[in-house]
């Protein structure tokens, strides 16, 4: 093998090794950090049981927001058309968090409660995140979903 070929071979082997290491790392990191989105009825149906951390999406039930008297702890209920799930969160809720609005909470189950580490509400108050809408539509295919939360465009 002449020096040029030898050098090229070294480079190719080095690049290949780097690619393999990088791919392995990427796959590992992806597996560790993939969060699935479920609606309350899907969670109650046991679909989320396999995952320690997942995202819970739905509407905040009217009149369900309860604050603690001496800390930042807050509890509320997230509902979809046929299920509900009590959520506990310790922290400050986003600006757009309110009753009858869609939220996505990241966290884990603790008994029958969902303990959230992060709560997101969407910027546009009449806009429901597409992935949440799809998830809810899938959870209740054939069932009626409240039209007012399903509009794509902001009302004039």
């Amino acid at each position: 093998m002449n020096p040029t070929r030898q050098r090229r071979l070294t480079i190719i082997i080095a690049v290949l090794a780097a690619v393999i290491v990088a791919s392995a790392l990427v796959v590992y990191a992806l597996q560790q950090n993939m969060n699935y989105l479920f609606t309350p009825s899907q969670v109650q149906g046991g679909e989320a049981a396999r995952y320690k951390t997942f995202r819970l999406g739905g509407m905040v039930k009217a009149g369900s927001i309860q604050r603690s008297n001496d800390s930042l702890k807050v509890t509320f209920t997230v509902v979809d058309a046929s299920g509900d799930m009590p959520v506990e969160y310790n922290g400050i809720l986003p600006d757009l968090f309110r009753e009858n609005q869609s939220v996505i909470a990241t966290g884990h189950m603790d008994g029958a409660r969902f303990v959230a580490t992060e709560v997101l509400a969407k910027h546009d108050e009449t806009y429901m995140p597409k992935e949440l809408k799809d998830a809810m539509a899938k959870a209740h295919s054939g069932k009626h979903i409240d039209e007012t939360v399903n509009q794509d465009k902001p009302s004039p």
Partner: protein
Amino acid sequence: MTPELGQLALILALMLALAQSILPLLGAWRGNRALMAVARPAASGQAVFVALAFAILVWAFLHFDFSVQYVADNSNLQLPWYYRIAAVWGAHEGSMLLWVLILNVWTVALALFSRQLPEVFLARVLSVLGIISVGFLCFILFTSNPFGRLLPMPADGADLNPVLQDPGMTFHPPVLYMGYVGFSVAFAFSIAALLGGSMEQAWVRWARPWTNAAWAFLSCGIVAGSWWAYAELGWGGWWFWDPVENASFMPWLVGVALIHAQAVTEKRGSLRAWTILLSLFAFSLSLLGTFLVRSGILTSVHAFASDPRRGTYILCFLAFVVGGSLLLYALRAPKVAGGKAFALISRESAILIGNLMFTVAAAMVLLGTLFPLLGDALNLGKISVGPPYFGLLFPLLMLPVVLLLPFGPYLRWGKSDVPALKQVLVRAGMAAAACAIIAAFFVEGQLKAIAGVACAVWVGVGVVLYIVKRWREMPRGRRYPAEMAGMLLAHFGVAIFLIGVLLSESLSVTRDVRMSPGQVAAVGGYEFRFDGVTQTTGPNWVAEQGVVTVTRKGAPIAVMHPQKRTYTHERVQTASAVDPGITRDLYVALGEPMDANHVEGAWALRLYTKPFIRWIWGGGLFMMLGGFVSAADRRFRVKRDAEATQTITTPVQESQA
């Protein structure tokens, strides 16, 4: 009537764009100089009409013309005039118009400042830019018309999203678009080179300042966006790995690789095919970024609802640009490829390693960003990829870059000798180790902070050592040409950025607390006293304004006024209060009243101390400055006849390695 004129102007611009994209290309193919000469006037005319359309939309906003749907959706009578101008690019339709306007500005600038380029080559470049313009103008006219009417005309409009009502927002999108669109020049150069089947070093020299400027604009836009997210969103974070942030970050990463690869190609003629490929990627990712932001296909804080026609059009256009350019690359790249060989220890090798790291990082970000779409398409469920994915992989990929960075300027083209490198290794390494040991006493064993200091000193001292070396060895006036000064500035920016990121990430203290008026909370060595809330008003909002007095060991530091604003249509927006400093920021945001009926009572507050966080944007600004300074180098503008006519046809030479 006026909005219809805007529409008409856009249609005329489309006609001229069609002429600009088809005729010069035909001319270049048939060798017809008259057809090639169409490019310049067509580009100028198109720019005039697009500017006219844009001006008409601005005029409609300034005069509250709510009969235009887009104006009615994004402004109202209370909105101050400066935000009415910003509202022009506050949503999808206007953003696209701004994009085309900026594309036209770049095209006209290119047509003006490129008289030294060969006629055929320039004709091809301008016609490629014309094709991109046609794509965007059709997109606007057929799916996203900003001049659509709303009848009957409402008495008042809706509102610009309150999140966007911030000084940072007024210039963040235009600057970012300057960057995105700027990469179209490098793209057009590459396509023209592929079409012509040859690539001259002189042309790459011509493309370089444009790429550097585009990259600098993109850096500036990202810094502005990050700063805006920090100051406005009330979370105190500066980067969230949100899909839209990623969308602007991917072209930036590939841009870093591209400006270095272009340097190699221009100086040495090597890596030509790679440079072309990178410029195709950089622009494709810019397009992807533009569309990801406003198309609504990804769930993100920036995403808007959209209609399906847009998605289909975008997909087709992306497929045309990416697929078409890659096909052309596959067919023609072997013809333009080649160049001098280089040794393992050489500047080319170092740049190539850096290039690989940056492209892999961009690919990693792309995968993480599009994975939810992929999962959706493959029916894997609704997936999101959490920030830790990026947080783990990105530093790992950038570590080799940081370690290699000080050696860069010392390495010679072709083949480098080792002793000079050893000297840098020893000096910068010792400085880094010493500073890390000193830092260890101050940061209470935070490994991340110590690593940050070590890395930053390693890079910073490496750059300074080289500055000193040039000062000693070169005669006055030739020490720091603009190109080199820009490189040193940008590299020094990396050191500042590293300090900012690693120290603020590891040493920040964050507390969410419930506070009654008069209560004191201690955070990071400061005492924050909450003095209750008062009412205040702005041009189009009312707010509850908290008063927080900060002291340090009893000495007064600052009185801060975080706000909770309520805009028209009951939209609530947090406006946090920041007390800036070189070594630390104090950050207070109002959460919510514990009892909505008693706002004078207890509130939830976010209290942060953020050491060195300003250095993050400082580093970014240094990088931006470096890009602009490099772009301004006279060498790029001087015409060299001898070189301009000499095509690289020299056979590949073997080095003595």
